[in-house]
């Protein structure tokens, strides 16, 4: 496939999404993104979706199902919020400090999760069930099951998501980090080798445990960022998510992950994540436009239906292509 054709193919998805949704909104007399405020929201949400999807994909691509993403996001940003508040009491620089601490906490939580997996050598899905419960439990214990509010309600935090600039910087930084780490470093090459040929790669001498730990660490760190962004956006963190209350966040990442997989056929997979997140964020902005007529129930039904429809298209598209080729 030629480069221009690739670009066209890669951009097709977000462009079509934009056109369809914009048309819908115009019929309602509005625009998907009508002013600066909604643009800010759009970029922030894009960042959240993109990073969550990346965190999910890192392990899922290697066949490791991780239910603990949501609990890592929650716990890491609660730790970040508590420590930051302890140091700055909500003063200037709270947001960047919290972002850093949550990131580090996320990495550590990810590493613990990965270490548990590598030590127990149980199927990752089972380990992640246990880890999720543990992290939720710790979260509950720290917060007493309450919303964390005063720690994250300060001008610095609301500044973080109050403008598109920081979210855009975060997107750029994460994207650059992911592309460099997974496409350019020896770790990334080893990751790809392990992903498609675990047995051979291990026999040849790639250190699987080390590679896996790094994956979990990165995934956790990304969720730390997501947690902070969500905390700033929602102005609260829910500390009382016992009994798998935290896993919902990963389900929202499925649709963008499949979209990213599709776009990734034509371009770098990580760019695919960004473009998929843009699609999801456009949809989200549209929901905001229609918030008076489309309630949360409808939204979740629409999301679910889109997921199924897209997968039907994706899987049967392959089938059709295969039939045509023959």
């Amino acid at each position, binding site marked *: 496939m030629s480069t221009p054709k690739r670009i066209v193919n890669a951009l097709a998805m977000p462009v079509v999404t934009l056109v369809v949704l914009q048309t819908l909104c115009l019929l309602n007399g509005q625009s998907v993104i009508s002013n600066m405020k909604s643009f800010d929201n759009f970029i922030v949400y894009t960042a959240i979706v993109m990073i969550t999807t990346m965190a999910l994909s890192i392990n899922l691509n290697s066949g490791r199902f991780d239910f603990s993403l949501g609990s890592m996001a929650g716990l890491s940003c609660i730790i970040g919020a508590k420590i930051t508040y302890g140091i700055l009491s909500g003063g200037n620089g709270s947001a960047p400090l919290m972002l850093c601490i949550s990131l580090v906490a996320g990495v550590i939580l990810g590493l613990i999760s990965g270490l548990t997996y590598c030590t127990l050598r149980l199927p990752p899905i089972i380990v992640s069930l246990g880890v999720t419960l543990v992290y939720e439990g710790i979260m509950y214990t720290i917060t007493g099951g309450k919303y964390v509010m005063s720690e994250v309600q300060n001008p610095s935090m609301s500044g973080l998501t109050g403008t598109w600039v920081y979210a855009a910087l975060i997107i750029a930084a994460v994207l650059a980090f992911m592309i460099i780490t997974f496409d350019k470093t*020896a770790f990334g090459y080893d990751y790809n080798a392990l*992903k*498609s*040929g675990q047995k051979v790669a291990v026999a*040849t*001498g790639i250190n699987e445990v080390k590679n896996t730990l790094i994956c979990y660490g990165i995934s956790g760190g990304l969720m730390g960022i997501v947690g902070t962004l969500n905390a700033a956006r929602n102005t609260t963190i829910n500390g009382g998510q016992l009994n798998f209350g935290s896993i919902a966040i990963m389900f929202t990442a499925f649709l963008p992950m499949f979209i990213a997989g599709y776009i990734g056929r034509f371009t770098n997979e990580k760019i695919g994540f960004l473009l998929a997140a843009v699609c999801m964020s456009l949809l989200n902005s549209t929901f905001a436009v229609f918030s008076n007529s489309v309630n949360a129930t409808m939204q979740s039904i629409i999301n679910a239906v889109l997921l199924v429809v897209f997968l039907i298209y994706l899987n049967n598209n392959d089938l059709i292509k295969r039939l045509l080729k023959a």
Partner: protein
Amino acid sequence: MNKPVLEMKNISKRFGSVVALNEVDLEVYPGEIRGLIGENGSGKSTISSIAAGMQKANEGEMFFKGNRWEPASMIDALNKGIGMVVQESGTIGGISVAENMFLAELGSFKNKFGLVDKNKLERKADEALKSVGIAGISGRDAMGRLDFQDRKLVEIAKVIMKNPDILIIDETSTALSHDGRQIMYSLIRKMRNDGKSVIFISHDLDEIMEVCDTLTVLRDGNIIRTFEKEEFEADAIRSSMIGRELKGDYYRADTECTSLDEVVLSAQSLNYKDNLKDVSLELHRGEIVGVGGLASSGMHDLGEALFGALKLDSGHVICGSGKEILSPHNAMGQKIGYVSKDRDQKSLCLDASIKDNIAIAGMNIFKNKINLVTSSGEKRYVKKQVDELKIKCSDMDQAVGQLSGGNKQKVVFGKWIGCGSEILILDCPTRGVDIGVKQAMYQLMVKLKNEGKAILMISEELPELIGMSDRVLIMKDGEITREFKRSSTLSEGDIISYMI
């Protein structure tokens, strides 16, 4: 001779309670091509993979060029002078050829920013491929796009480019065509000429006798005997491999082409992608039809197609009753059994017990009056197969994954014979099976033929095709190019030219 380049002393290796190697000593000298031969599970792959750093011995010590030899991994061993081309695929499909060749050592391609220099990587790979004499493959290519033979060649290049002192080749030639083999043989000769050593592992006695200077026979984790070139003699080697004289016939005793008239299965103009082109054949009651060719000839697809497991582009598979076979479900209904070449992936459920694996196809036979599957009926049914086929196991609840290759294959046979299959499609039935079991399989096939069953045997080994078949069909590029009738004068030389 001079000092050995590799000394292995008192090497023991256990997998759980299974002793794979029992205090084995092995010495390899410079300029020597050493063959390792033995039945499955004899320990030949284990000992060579220990030398190559793929796994660690429980006991014993090794010396390489006079120094203690403790490789950390395969790549470590390779960099220090011992490289191995492994039996199963040693390459990864999802990444490029260059990445495969430098797997686990991409750290050495870092540029000044600490990132992997892709151009340098691909350049190095291209150079290495060229120097080994492999044309038509570039380091940039996606490994997944290459066929099996090219993958194997990449693997060989990967080892050779490190210029190892000892090259270990484990069961590789079966994957290679004539050309591929020539590349490999010339590399082996070059190694010898350079004063380096080769450890060559193969099931193919003829090949190993031709290639090697010395030949070490292993059995049950022990070294039985080492033959020098002048002592090479097929029967002696065989009997030391199995630890007894082979009694009775190896292949079929008769040389007549015999079968009944009744056609039990016919293929009519089968087309499937590029792999099957207008293939037609007939299989008769009491007949063994052999299908030979290169791995890529389409013959393996033919096996699946006859069993209804492929969605054909056109053509029909009709069985004796006149019914068309459209799915494996249909095929089973018509008493057809299929033994896949890819035994572990396609013919067995490794986690499941011997009992489960054999019983799964025969439930209609041992079910009770009200259609229920009872444990007693099942046990009786399975025990019969285990006894008749002499499957070696602790009990029938043992997981199939724990069995040796030969016994696994017996389980597959038991599954299909037990349920009363009248037609057996056997794809490489003796692949990875040791001589003792092989002989038993051949005798079983003769017995089945005499009972009036029809067998279609697909094989990459010409001797067994010639030795067993009433008719041999040769395939090339998806077409049947020639048919040979059974005769005492039929030789490999007659056939090979139609394959390549």
